């Protein structure tokens, strides 16, 4: 797959040699409308793929993504729990390249919205007719006292897929018998609402088998969390006495860390820990801020097509968007990408534009074959993406149903990754 990618890249490079003023990526647009997508995750990869696929060559699509291999953040907790291997989470962009997307592995460093160009770290600027930003999340500086990104190799966030996840797993496996795993959970809104609690479950799953006297403490600035009754029921059933969740009412939000001393201070009480997973407060990916489309930490968007309130030619998908009622999840980003792709195609080529429909489902695994889920459907209103209908798994469900739910989540993983990257 990487070979195909390389061949296309070289091909466009040769065509561009004639024009020194235009970097190699753009010569291939040949007067066609040009869509540039930044970020090859659930939002960006899906949008790029759908626009290229559905426009039948009428629109040139360029995807800017620094990583050559994408490791999904979704299902990374299952890797921590030993249920998935890291390679199960890795995907490459050959399928997109073969599908007509010009995949450029570079960093987007700035947007000139007047000139309608995107600057790349590797040099050059990319002109666009429509720009779709899907940069995921970055962390709010100073959100957790004592922690910054320089400390992430001691106290990993593991909230972007790949090396951070591997680091956290290695630390967890190296814990002494009876040691302590601490998590600093994030405030709302953040990527993957059930994610920290699925992570606690999967860490407990590993420790129960390998380090049964170990403890997990969670300092949480929130008073309650996604699927709380389902998780707490599961923790009592599978991991009794192992997990101490300290919510807002017990000072869980009053927290600082010391990466040198390896301590966590919760509401004045200092605890020496062996692993400390700090998941700080989040904000839109940095490029959104540089594009000047953020208000506060996020990017306000129009629900009908995911265009930003600030600029009708700049769209923002997924975690970075302030869109209304949808949770920040891969499923949501994928759903928003399809609405956006349909609208962008319509705007550039006059193809039919259909009404925006959105949906989301988040599956979480509590223990082997004990899966739960929450989901909803959404529609576009003038004001926001608004929830229409929803459901959640119930406490006390049968083992058969929980197993079927887990198997369904595996089916979803195969489905969404095929949908993002091309099967």
């Amino acid at each position: 797959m990487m070979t195909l990618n390389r061949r296309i890249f070289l091909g466009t490079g040769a065509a561009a040699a004639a024009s020194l003023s235009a970097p190699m990526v753009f010569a291939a647009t040949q007067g066609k409308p040009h869509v540039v997508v930044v970020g090859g995750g659930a939002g960006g990869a899906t949008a790029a793929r759908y626009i290229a696929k559905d426009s039948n060559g009428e629109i040139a699509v360029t995807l800017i993504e620094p990583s050559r291999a994408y490791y999904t953040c979704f299902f990374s907790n299952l890797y921590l729990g030993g249920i998935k291997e890291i390679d199960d989470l890795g995907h490459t962009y050959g399928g997109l390249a073969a599908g007509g997307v010009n995949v450029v592995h570079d960093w987007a460093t700035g947007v000139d919205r007047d000139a309608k160009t995107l600057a790349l770290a590797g040099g050059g600027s990319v002109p666009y007719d429509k720009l779709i930003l899907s940069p995921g999340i970055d962390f709010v500086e100073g959100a957790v006292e004592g922690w910054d990104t320089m400390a992430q190799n001691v106290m990993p966030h593991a909230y972007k897929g790949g090396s951070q996840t591997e680091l956290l797993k290695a630390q967890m496996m190296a814990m002494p018998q009876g040691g302590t795993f601490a998590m600093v959970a994030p405030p709302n809104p953040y990527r993957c609402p059930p994610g920290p609690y699925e992570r606690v479950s999967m860490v407990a799953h590993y420790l129960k088998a390998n380090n049964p006297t170990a403890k997990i403490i969670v300092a949480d600035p929130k008073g309650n969390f996604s699927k709380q009754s389902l998780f707490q029921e599961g923790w009592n059933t599978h991991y009794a006495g192992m997990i101490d969740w300290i919510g807002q009412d017990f000072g869980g939000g009053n927290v600082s860390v010391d990466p040198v001393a390896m301590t966590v201070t919760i509401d004045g009480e200092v605890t020496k820990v062996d692993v400390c997973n700090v998941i700080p407060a989040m904000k839109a990916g940095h490029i959104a801020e540089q594009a000047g489309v953020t208000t506060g930490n996020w990017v306000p968007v129009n629900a009908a097509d995911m265009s930003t309130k600030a600029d009708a030619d700049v769209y923002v998908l997924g975690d970075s968007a302030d869109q209304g009622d949808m949770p920040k999840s891969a499923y949501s980003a994928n759903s928003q990408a399809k609405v956006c792709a349909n609208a962008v195609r319509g705007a550039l080529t006059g193809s039919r534009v259909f009404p925006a429909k959105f949906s989301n489902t988040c599956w979480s695994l509590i223990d082997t074959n004990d899966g739960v889920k929450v989901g909803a459907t959404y529609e576009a209103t003038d004001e926001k993406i608004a929830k229409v209908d929803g459901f959640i798994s119930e406490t006390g469900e049968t083992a058969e149903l929980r197993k079927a739910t887990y198997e369904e989540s595996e089916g979803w993983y195969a489905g969404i990754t095929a949908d993002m990257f091309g099967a």
Partner: protein
Amino acid sequence: MRSSHLLCLSLVAFLAAGGSGAAELGDAQKGREVFRQCTACHQVGDGAQNRVGPQLNGLFGRTAGTVDGVKYSESMIRMGNDGLVWTVETLDAYIENPRALVSKTRMSFRGIKDDQERADLMAYLRRYSDNPSNIPEAEPTATGTDHDLDPAILAIQGDPEYGEYLASECKTCHQASGANDGIPGITRWPTDDFVVAMHAYKRKLRPHPVMQMMAGRLNDDEIAALAAYFKDLE
């Protein structure tokens, strides 16, 4: 509509009798006659054995696809895992059109369209369920059992281009390749099967909560559009 009235009336009669069992859904004697067409595959009563299909003693209240030793379709097992339990309402829908409830059921039976015949058949089968707790007692189960889709809905010509757009939402989970692991493949289905299945979710006859939600917000034209698109997806 006539059909649902008939069934409702018999339910009301049952309720009026205080749930003592003195009243029946339909006429069990007639139901015994109706059951003859089932006997090629099903047995019920003393010493009933599994044959091509499961024995039907204790059918009411049983989770679909759970009789040991029966070779069920994957669809039926999936429905059981999703929570399909045989009640008056679900059984009525299944007997009327098996594929509306279980798309790839092994029960190759075209269904009984006559509502009274189904009520009679269920009255007969109910005799062989010791603890028929599913027999309607409360208001929600005693209302509307008008399952059959209006032929006009089945006749709608779907717009495949709209279907392609709508289908992009399905493909987050159901793979375009038709892969069938964890989540069933839905490509290349006969249009009618697709439409009746989606309407069964929309009416919450089929149990899966995600599908009930997804189908619940699609109108008749949108379901037809999806069916038109998926029918030809390679």
